[in-house]
Every structure is written in C-alpha cells, then in structure tokens.
C-alpha cells in the first residue's frame, strides 16, 4: 500500500467511510478552484464534520508526513485551494453551522463552510449584517474568506475580512486546536489572529470563526454616473475622496466591460459611456443626504453626462448586477480571459489606465477594466482566444505587464484574490529576499514541517530547521562543529 492508501484506511476507520473520497472520478471534482487553468487531482479528499475531525485529519497527515490543503467553496481566484497530487484536500463544506448570532454583542460565531451571505441573512432580522462582501458572496465560504482576507466592493469604507474577524479556533499544522482572539477585543499576546487571516491556508485551518456584525445602515443611496472617458471618471473619484467623503463603494467599469455586462445581463447602463461609476453612500439618513448632494455635484463638475439615482432597492440591484456579473459577462465577448487583480495608489488611476491601454495595443490584446476605483484595486480582464495559437501567451504577457505597472506605481500584486499558486512568482518583484525570508519565519513557527498548503504564496520555501544566528568562531566548542 502507498502512504496515501494507508492514510485513507486510517481516516476511514477513524472518521467513517463517507468522510473520505479516494475514487479517481470523484477526486477530479476537486481538481481546481476558481482559477480553472491550474488543475491537480488531489491524492485524497476528506470532508470533516467538525473541528475535532478536522484536527484528527491534520494529525493523521502529520504522522504520515503528507501535505494537506484546505478548501472552502473553491471560488478562490489565485489557485490557493489547488490540491496537492500526493496530499489530502480537506474540504470544509460539511462544516456549515451558524453556531450563534449575538446581536447584543455584535458578534456571530460560524463554522468555516458557512456561506458569506448566509451570515448576513442570519443577522438581518436583528438589524445587522456581515460587512465584507466579495462578489462571490453567494457561494464563497467564511473559512475561505479568512484564508484569503477577502475584500469586496464595500471594503473602501468597511475594511476587509481581517477587520471583521475577531476570533478563530484553528487547527494548527501540528493538528492542535488553538483559540486565537476571542469574543472581546485585544486578546493579550501577539496578534496571531491578525497574522493568520490572509495567510492562505499556510498556517492552519480555521474551524470556527467569530465575526463582527455591523448595524444595517439607516439609509443607502446609490448613484450611477456615466462619463465620456475613464480619465473623467477617475477625476470624479479623486474629487469625491478629496472632499472628505468616504463612500461605502466607488466602482468603475470601462467601455469594454460595459459592453460585456450589457451583453450578459442587460443592465441598461447609459449608451455611449466610456466609463461608468457606481457610487454608494450609506449611514445615518441626514449624513447620507448631505454627502449625496456633494457627490452628485462632483460627478457633474467632472463631466458626467448622465446621472441616475437608484429610486428603489430593485434599481440599486440592477446597477450592481452589471458590476457584480462583469467577470463572467466577459465570456460573452471573448472565449477566454484572465482576471487580473492588482492595486495602485488611487491617484495614479488615469495614468495607469493609459499605460494599460498602451500595453494592450502593443500586444494586440483587448483589456476590459473593472475596478474598485475608491481604493485603486484594478481588475483588468485580459481577453484572448485559446484556439488561436500564440494568443494565450500574449495575454499572459499583458497580464504580467499590468502587475509590473502596479509595482512600478507603488501598489500591490494582489488586492483581494491572494497570491496562491498563481502569483508566487511575482512575490520577488514586490518584496526583497530578506522580506520574504522574514515572512517565512512566521511560517516556520506555525508549520516547521511545511505541510500546510505547500507551494503557495512563497516562490521559494524556507527550510525551517536552520535558524540563522550569527555566531563568533570562538563561541562554539570545537566539538560542536563536527
């Protein structure tokens, strides 16, 4: 028997036969996450029902020296949940209990497989919601959100997953259950929870998550503004921020992205727009009214040729439908596409968009731009046809050039999709070897054996056995040297 076969036997007898998948066909269901061009069939899939089973699975992996990868709903866009061919994929989809909703403490406690939007549904009757809202919120899991430190359209005002997770029970890469953070703020000791959120499954697996609930706003106003050019829309965004307004969201789409959205969901955006902005304000009624007037005026001053104000929740949903479906919609205008995720300082937006346009023209590759304009998080969609020889390579080049632009302008190689498998190669462009080595000290503290999601985030794994320490030659006894 191979190691994996022995592991399968042990896990079946320990957890029950229905918790373990080793059939080749069934395993293939899990061969990729949302980044479907990377595919690896996992060696084994385990579906634990609770934290104890999850910990037992990890301990079994440790004893067998087999790597493991955690997976929530599998919607990640950086290949973070890409399985290991000789490893175990631990899928949290059976851990879907909402353990507690405590509006009096503004907290909810959930298992990692719980769908993001379901937390909001559970809290809404009490007047609360869960603020981080990635576009995939109808299917993505809280455990995956914690691993990726997921953002969303509204993180401009409300922050990311890390700002809303205040406690977690995790299975460490040793297989121990440990509590990080808690229900009250500022737990004594190092903020390991803060470091864990966004560590992309390389420091362990969250098995129970305590999140902050946010009061549903009294008022929400949504504006759709159409501009002739992305420069104008960018200038309007800068003007809004400069005026001291912090909108809940400022989203931009360019002409090609609008064309795709129209083709897919008929969102009815103004015809002839070179760019649209969706600006959303929320909060106390009087506050929102005052700021909305300001925002409307600033859009007009910066050349908006049409302004639509959502009259009701249905119209608001329609504004957002075009934006939230944009990634998938691009499938209507191009057989294949790469979704890029990079960040630039907001003020560099017009300049970087021109540079992206130049790169696009030089390579003969179309790029549709969708982005969280308020925080400079770009999602260029690089279009190509895999059926045409050479196009995929050219698209890859354009996609890489966009990342280089983000770095050149002092931004980041990823704003919310994570590094995962896909961007580990770019990490040395953003960080020095010393930076990366230092980050991996944390990895070595949690996972000295390197079994938790190996090969992700860091291009070169650090061997944890060698703790670097400067020593003077005189310090060591000669006997120790040999």
């Amino acid at each position: 028997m191979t190691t994996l076969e022995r592991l399968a036997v042990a896990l079946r007898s320990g957890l029950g036969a229905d918790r373990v998948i080793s059939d080749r066909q069934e395993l293939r269901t899990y061969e990729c996450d949302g980044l479907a061009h990377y595919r690896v069939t996992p060696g084994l899939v385990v579906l634990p029902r609770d934290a104890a089973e999850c910990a037992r699975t990890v301990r079994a992996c440790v004893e067998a020296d087999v790597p493991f990868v955690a997976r929530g709903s599998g919607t990640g866009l950086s290949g973070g949940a890409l399985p290991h061919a000789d490893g175990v994929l631990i899928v949290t989809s059976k851990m879907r209990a909402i353990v507690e909703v405590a509006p009096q403490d503004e907290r909810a406690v959930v298992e990692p497989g719980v769908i993001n939007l379901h937390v909001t549904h559970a809290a809404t009757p009490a007047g609360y919601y869960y603020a981080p809202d990635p576009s995939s919120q109808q299917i993505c899991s809280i455990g995956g959100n914690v691993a990726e430190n997921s953002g969303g359209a509204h993180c401009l005002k409300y922050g990311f997953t890390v700002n809303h997770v205040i406690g977690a029970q995790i299975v460490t890469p040793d297989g121990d259950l440990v509590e990080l953070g808690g229900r009250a703020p500022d737990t004594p000791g190092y903020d390991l929870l803060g470091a864990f959120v966004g560590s992309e499954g390389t420091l362990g697996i969250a098995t129970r998550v305590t999140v902050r609930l946010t009061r549903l706003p009294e008022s929400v106003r949504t504006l759709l503004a159409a501009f002739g050019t992305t420069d104008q829309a960018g200038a309007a965004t800068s003007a809004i921020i400069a005026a001291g307004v912090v909108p809940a969201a400022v989203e931009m789409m360019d002409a090609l992205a609008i064309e795709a959205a129209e083709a897919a969901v008929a969102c009815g955006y103004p015809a002839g727009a070179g760019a649209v902005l969706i600006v959303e304000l929320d909060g106390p009624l009087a506050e929102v009214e005052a700021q909305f007037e300001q925002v409307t005026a600033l859009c007009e001053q910066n050349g908006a040729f049409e302004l639509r104000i959502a009259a009701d929740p249905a119209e608001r949903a329609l504004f957002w439908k075009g934006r939230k479906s944009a990634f998938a919609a691009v499938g209507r205008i191009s057989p294949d596409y790469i979704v890029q995720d990079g960040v630039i300082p907001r003020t560099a937006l017009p300049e970087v968009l021109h540079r992206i346009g130049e790169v696009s023209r030089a390579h003969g590759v179309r790029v549709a731009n969708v982005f969280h304009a308020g925080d400079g998080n770009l999602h260029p969609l690089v279009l190509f046809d895999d059926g045409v020889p050479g196009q995929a390579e050219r698209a890859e080049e354009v996609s890489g050039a966009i990342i280089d632009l983000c770095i050149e302008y002092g931004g980041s190689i990823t704003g919310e999709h994570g590094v995962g498998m896909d961007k580990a190669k770019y990490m040395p462009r953003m960080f020095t070897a010393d930076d990366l080595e230092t980050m991996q000290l944390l990895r070595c503290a949690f996972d000295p054996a390197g079994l938790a999601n190996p090969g992700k985030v860091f291009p070169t794994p650090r061997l944890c056995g060698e703790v670097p320490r400067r020593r003077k030659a005189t310090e060591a006894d000669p006997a120790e040297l040999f």
Partner: protein
Amino acid sequence: MALWTAATQADTVGGVPARFVAAPASTAEAAEVLRAAADDDLAVVVRGGGSKLDWGLPPRRLDLIVDTRNLTGVVEHAAGDLIMVVRAGTPLAGLDLPGQQLALDPSLPGATIGGTVAANTSGPRRLAYGTVRDLLIGITVVRPGGMVARSGGKVVKNVAGYDLGKLFTGSYGTLGLITECAFRLHPRPAARALVVRTAPADRIGALLAAVRAEQVVPAAVEIDAPADGPVTLAVLVEGTPAGVRDRAATLCKALGAEETDELPPWWGAYPWARAGMKLTAPLSRVPDLLSCGVALRGSAGTGVLYADVPVDTAPAVVERLRATAIRAGGHGVVLTAPQHVRERIDMWGPVPGLELMRRVKDQFDPGHRFAPGRFVGGI
C-alpha cells in the same frame, strides 16, 4: 563614529539599568547597530518617547537601549491616496496632515508612532476607526540580527504576503525594531458633537443598549466611572454639520442627555494613579465590569475599559477584576504597576495560544535578546 554611547543613570527600563544607548537616524544605521549588538550578544530594549516604558515586566537583562528619537519625520503624505509613511520615533500628537488625520488617539503625552504600534494603544475613537491593526498598512522593521524587512506596502488594499504589521502590533518590542510605518488616513470630520449623561452604575447597561439601538453611528462611546458614585456616559458623533446635529438630537432624546461641544477632561486619559489594568468584555457584558469598587474609564462602546488598581490591595483587586472580566468573556491585563506590586501579581493572566507565541519569538529572536521577559509568558 561609535554606534552607541555609555548610558546615563536615567537610562533604565523598569528599574533595570542599561549600559549603552544608541540613537540611529535611519533604518540602515539601525541595522548596523543591531548587527553589532548581535555580535556582542547584547540584550536590547527599544525606547520611543518613554511614555510606556513602565508597561510590561522589566527586562530579564538589558545592555543596550535603542532610542528612536532620531528616527523622526513624515517620509510621505499622499493626501489624494489618504496614506502616510512615517518614521517610528515621530510623536503621534501633532502630526501635520491638513484636512486629514491618522485616527489613533494619543493616550499618553510624548507617545511615538513606534511605541503606539508596539504597545497597541488605542483611544475613544477606536469605535469608529479601529485600532493600530486596522490602520497600519505597511511596516519596516529591523530584525534582532540586523536584517531589514518590510511587509505590506503603501496601498490600503493589499493581500500580498504575510502581514507582519499585525504581528509587530502589540508585540512590546520583543520581535525587533520598528523603524517605519505606513498608515491609512481618514478625512478630518467637518463637525462633531458630544452627548453626555450621568447615571447610576446599574443604569449604564440600559443606556449603552439605547445608544446601540439608535442609527447614530457613534465615533466613540466612553464612560467614566469613579470608584463609587454615578457613572458618566459620553457619546461622540462626527460627520457633516447637518448629520451631526441630527444624530446628536436623536441621542439627547434617547438618553435624556445634554449636548456639548467640549470634550470632558477625562476623555481618553487613563484613570490610574500608579497601577492600571485593561479589562475587556463582549459588549453586552460591559456592565459586569462596573461596580467593582475601583475607578474605571474607557471605551464601553467597544468593550475596553481601564481600571485604577489601588496599590495597597493590588493582588486581591487584580485577581477579582480579572476573574470578572474572564467570566464576562474577556481578559484582564495589568499594564503598569510599581515594582513591588508586580512581584506579587500575574501581569497578563491566561494567554490562549501561548505555545505558538513562544515559537514565533524563537523564530524572530532566537537568542531572546529583544526585551527579554517583558511580554506574555516570559517572552
């Protein structure tokens, strides 16, 4: 030039005298100092404004104080991007950011950026803006061996790599020297108002719930509770002039309270004379912390209160306050106390995840030379 000079009598940490003091003026100089300190196996404590040098435990050993007084100044303020990069020794109070703010309330006079990050202090407006961990977007540190490392960056939205800023926040100088921090900024609000109500301690729970029930989005919900007598509740709202007026009126009605423009003198100030604790609790259990017979003050709206611990009855009071906080679902940490009191109490209380924390310390500071013994579990 010598990397450090001889210490004076004033150069002590928690009563432990240092032998040398270094005051590097750049990250590169700091790296040079720390490389040399590593070669000589010197125990190091980092000192900013010295406002919290009496926090935590005294170092087990101390040779070199690395003072950040020459690591000052704003490196970059990108107003349009609402970010700033600032050197660690820069005083937190008095940053000149026209129309904008780094939304961290200075809790002690003289506190620096680096000390605020390392001790993770926060003030009343943490309710609206969060704490250091929510505002710090990038960090430059020098490791105990002298290696310079950065994480994060200069953009707010960024998930590339581990967030070492989180790890260094509240690490009490035990992992390395912080030399530069990048922060997210916020616009300075156009208007603010404070709504104040004094009531018996047993009414405070209901009043806090009443604030939560209104759509007023407070920037701060603070209480000031003397050892005995009534408690003062003060709610701050910030925003546009029209919005603030409206929300303050709503609050006045809900609380039967008065509106004022003036912050009370106790606003954001620690309540202790010589020994102080930080107590935390989930929101609905904050009232449990009241009526403990000691003066309390702090952010009732986020579940963080500070206590004045009477020195003569300290061990018993610390245990009682800590037990109350733990029963409520929170923690009780002694931030500062005279040395003879420290010797008789547990400063930190139970620390979940301590084993992992020790492993983190071993990785970053294998020689245990940085602030040894100052932190949880003897780290």
